[in-house]
């Protein structure tokens, strides 16, 4: 039996046509649909479900923020840091953003090194990524402490404006922080296994790419929290 569609060469047909042909081949050929390892496919499916969790968080935040009559707290004022006699708006959040993006960059390089089976470089880069995550959690702990202890923000009350602010702040950033924490633990385990040579023995470094997917997703979620919660 032969099939007319070629999976690898895309000559003689338009891009759209090729896409549709590819789609039909993958879903109809009575073999596994996704031409990737199960570990990567399952991580993506998990990340889709996580997308819906954070998506519904941010949408519920939008819905409630639309309903309130009191003005929503001015985030660039709430999250300002007092540096050198002046208040710099959102300074800590900006630093957290850069730290998380940098950890995403080192993770991308770690995946690249793992594909070349460079054990040491890959392991060290994953450790660097986990360290970036730790710095992020540390700064978040500082931020929460400042808000709870110094400024008296509670899930049900705050001095800046609409009372609903606190519950969404703690829920959204808390859930993201939980993801970062789990990611740090996850990456530490993977780094240990890389450095111990487990994936050299298996001759298979795919798990580094899979853990990278999780870490980049954590960064991705922060992009939207930064935009819609802190900047909007």
């Amino acid at each position, binding site marked *: *039996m032969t*099939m007319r569609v*070629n*999976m690898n060469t895309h000559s003689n047909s338009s891009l759209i046509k090729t896409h549709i042909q*590819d*789609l039909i*081949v*993958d*879903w109809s050929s009575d*073999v*596994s*649909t*996704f*031409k*990737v*390892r199960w570990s990567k*496919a399952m991580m*993506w499916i998990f990340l*889709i479900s996580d*997308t*819906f969790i954070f*998506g*519904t968080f941010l*949408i519920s935040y*939008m*819905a*409630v*923020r*639309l*309903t309130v*009559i009191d003005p929503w707290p001015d985030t*660039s004022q709430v999250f300002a840091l007092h540096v050198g006699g002046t208040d710099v*708006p*959102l300074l800590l959040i900006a630093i957290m*953003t*850069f730290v998380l*993006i940098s950890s*995403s*960059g080192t993770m*991308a*390089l770690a995946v*690249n090194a793992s*594909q*070349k089976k460079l054990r040491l470089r890959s392991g060290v880069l994953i450790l660097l990524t986990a360290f970036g995550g730790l710095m992020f959690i540390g700064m978040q702990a500082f931020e929460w402490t400042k808000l709870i202890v110094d400024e008296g923000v509670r899930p049900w009350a705050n001095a800046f404006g609409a009372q609903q602010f606190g519950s969404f702040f703690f829920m959204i950033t808390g859930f993201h922080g939980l993801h970062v924490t789990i990611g740090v633990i996850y990456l530490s385990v993977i780094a240990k296994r890389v450095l111990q040579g487990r994936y050299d023995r*298996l*001759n*298979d470094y*795919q798990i580094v*790419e899979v853990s*990278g997917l999780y870490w*980049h997703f954590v*960064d991705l979620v922060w*992009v*939207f929290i*930064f*935009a*819609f919660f*802190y*900047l*909007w």
Partner: protein
Amino acid sequence: MKEQEIFQHPSFFPGVTEEKEHPIKLYLFIWGLLFILSALSYFVDYINLEGLLRWFLITALALLKAGLIVSVFMHLAWERIALIYTILLPPILLLLMLAIFANDGNAINYLRSTFG
């Protein structure tokens, strides 16, 4: 493609990596771009842009960053189309939810400001 070739696809052979490698330069370039885009969105707040321009810039910059992370860092640009659609199509439902709750939120706000 012959049936036999389908079964020779790397996904049937655990232990063999099929990922394409990309030059480190590409990752460093995207990294730099993400830094610049983040700095720009911070700048939008810093210079106190207000109203429609602020919201447009914040959303556009966030979507650009998200696109770069997903397509390059998460390698989605190089995956097969069946996987890409499986990942990117379901989240469109979130837009529907967004529309429904924006409507609902505005309605409640109207009720509160009129009768509250």
